[in-house]
């Protein structure tokens, strides 16, 4: 084994006198030579293949986890973004109507287009179930997110052409627009 004994004597001389440094350096070199003379058993070829197989499986499992966590993170970020963007739009019935303020009726919203619900189960067929122990827990969490998204009813006045079909939400019937109803605590983050 190639030992890193560069300038060993010079290093030892920082702490002991020259004669002691010589003796210590010689002790270390002889011991290293002894270890070289009696090497440990070698790792067999079959063992190397077994280890390589396990490592390949670990690489594949790591890539699968990146897909799952990446998808869950993206869905959560998209949900938060839509709530932030569209949650404050629309008219809210005021709790108190001051006398000095004119009462303004909410305008009729523009016709909106019903958008299809988009399944968040983007990765059902991406990999085998039961392989990753965390899959069941992640899947449950994603189902909860999907249910939360379905439960949000958003008031909007966005023309249909400005709201593309590939968004992850669909809007409830506009006739119930007067109330922003959030049935879960999902939006609280």
């Amino acid at each position, binding site marked *: 084994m190639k030992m*890193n004994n560069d300038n060993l004597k010079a*290093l030892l001389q920082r702490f002991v006198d020259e004669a002691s440094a010589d003796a210590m350096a010689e*002790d270390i070199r002889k011991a*290293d030579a*002894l270890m070289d003379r009696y090497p440990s058993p070698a790792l067999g070829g079959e063992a190397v293949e077994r280890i390589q197989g*396990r*490592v390949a499986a*670990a*690489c594949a499992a790591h890539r699968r986890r990146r897909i799952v966590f990446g998808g869950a993170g993206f869905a959560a970020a998209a949900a938060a973004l839509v709530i932030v963007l569209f949650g404050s739009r629309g008219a809210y019935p005021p709790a108190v109507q001051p006398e000095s303020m004119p009462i303004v009726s909410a305008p009729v919203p523009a016709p909106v287009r019903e958008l299809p619900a988009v399944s968040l189960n983007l990765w059902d067929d991406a990999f085998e179930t039961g392989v990753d122990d965390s899959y069941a827990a992640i899947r449950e969490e994603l189902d909860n997110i999907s249910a939360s998204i379905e439960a949000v009813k958003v008031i909007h006045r966005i023309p249909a052409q400005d709201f593309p079909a590939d968004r992850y939400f669909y809007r409830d019937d506009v006739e119930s627009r007067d109330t922003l109803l959030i049935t879960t605590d999902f939006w609280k983050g």
Partner: protein
Amino acid sequence: MADQQELSTFIKRLQKRDAAAFGELVERYGGRCYGYFYRLCGNPEQSEEFVSELFAKLVEKIGTFEGGSFDKWLFTVASNQFRDYLRRQYRYKRLLDEAAEEQRRQVDQTPERPGEQAILDKLQWAMEKLDKETAELLMFRYYGQMSFRELAEMRNEPIGTTLSKVHRGLKRLRMMMEDTE
């Protein structure tokens, strides 16, 4: 690895979790890692399991390599893994003493000029006579091929202390081996 550029390219492949790159990593470092674990635990099957666990762990931990000596980083992960194993083994010391006793019995039965396997056992027997900290330090230095400066930095101690511990441990090891030859 002699070439820094080659190492940098290789690390990037590892960080992409390229299975072929990890296969190469096993070929390059598997032998040294096996020797390190074998000298510390003395059991071939356990040593192979350690190596297998180590490289599986490296798939997850490769993202934490931030440059510098790759050998030092890899053997630091190996050292931490072995220490975790020791902490889990409440009866490790008793097993070690039993193994040392068994090794001693085997050594006593060898002829005047022992065969190679008996000599290997003798070195293992001598290793097991050392305290765990010294044994691990010597094997970390030998199989990790680290300088005394790197060793001292990793152990967070003055370089003079590391030098002294290594010298004392190696001298004792050599004396035990020479006494039985």
